[in-house]
């Protein structure tokens, strides 16, 4: 959040808008504190954002409890961003988007190339080298996958069952969503957050990341200086 707020403060007068969206099944319960952190006392519990996170948000920040944005833009991990121009057209498809280096020691991605791309787009608009042509965009967008569509339905049913107090029933549907769309870390992360992942899924987030065994956690980005 601090990183995105800083980008917004820097670029907001350049015909540029940011909308951050928290994709959290537990909605305000999990995402709310990060958005209202400025109002929290410094003595707030450990799970609350750390002091460095407690900044006042002035950009548009939303909570998407239904994961609608993830479905619409085929987002499978966080943080992910998509660029949309004044005409409502996607000009850069969804990609991993870090705007600070606090977790670089874990994922290895530099924030500088992405921030430079944002600045260039804000400055040059459609003339930016970071804007995809329609042809390039079409090539980059994955074709609709029926299994992924069904995974979204299974995940939605799992969420409904969870919210109506039926977690044990929800788990089988969360598992089915993960089976149908194994690329989605969002499905894994959300489901494991809602129960005991070791007990209910036989694994943990850390174990699953370790299983990558050198394979990238995030897909490669088309940015200068980053290897494909």
């Amino acid at each position: 959040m601090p990183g995105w707020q800083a980008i917004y403060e820097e670029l907001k007068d350049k015909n540029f808008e940011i909308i951050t969206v928290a994709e959290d099944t537990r909605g305000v319960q999990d995402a709310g504190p990060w958005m209202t952190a400025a109002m929290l006392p410094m003595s707030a519990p450990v799970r609350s954002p750390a002091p460095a996170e407690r900044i006042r948000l002035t950009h548009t920040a939303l909570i998407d409890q239904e994961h609608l944005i993830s479905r619409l833009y085929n987002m499978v991990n966080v943080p992910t961003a998509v660029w949309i121009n004044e005409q409502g057209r996607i000009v850069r498809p969804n990609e991993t988007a870090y705007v600070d280096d606090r977790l670089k020691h874990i994922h290895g991605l530099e924030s500088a190339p992405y921030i430079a791309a944002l600045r260039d787009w804000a400055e040059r608009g459609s003339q930016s080298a970071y804007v995809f042509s329609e042809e390039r965009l079409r090539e980059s967008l994955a074709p609709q996958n029926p299994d992924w569509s069904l995974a979204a339905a299974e995940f939605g049913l799992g969420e409904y069952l969870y919210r109506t107090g039926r977690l044990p029933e929800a788990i089988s549907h969360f598992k089915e969503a993960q089976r149908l769309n194994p690329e989605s870390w969002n499905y894994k992360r959300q489901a494991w957050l809602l129960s005991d992942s070791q007990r209910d899924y036989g694994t943990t987030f850390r174990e699953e990341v370790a299983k990558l065994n050198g394979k990238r956690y995030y897909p490669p980005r088309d940015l200068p200086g980053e290897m494909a």
Partner: protein
Amino acid sequence: MIQIRSTVIYDDVATELSAQSQAGQLWIESGDLSRATRFELKPRGVCRGELCYPLPPSRQSEFVQEQSGKSWFNLTAFARLMSQPVAHDAAHSRLVFRSALRSAPAIVLIASAGLHPSRYRRETAFAL
């Protein structure tokens, strides 16, 4: 047909209704179609505003049937017609219908450089 109480989650909205289940198909009363899905059964097809899905003329009975003095609509068959994914629990008492994204019109304006936040809130629309 087995009479059941069902919760249909359509476009993220949950609606409880009486339904019938047969061979994995969920039939709801035609009168409940609008309440559950915002679609309406019209002579030209199943419609939401100006958007209509015609039902195949030779397969009408697959979608609409009269039984016990009531008109029933096969929501599962309609989903299949629209290539709409459906997840359900074992008893078909809870079903989630997700949008068939491939066929959804690309009319979404989520955010746009240059729009003032208040204008964004007026113009935001989500394609489902």
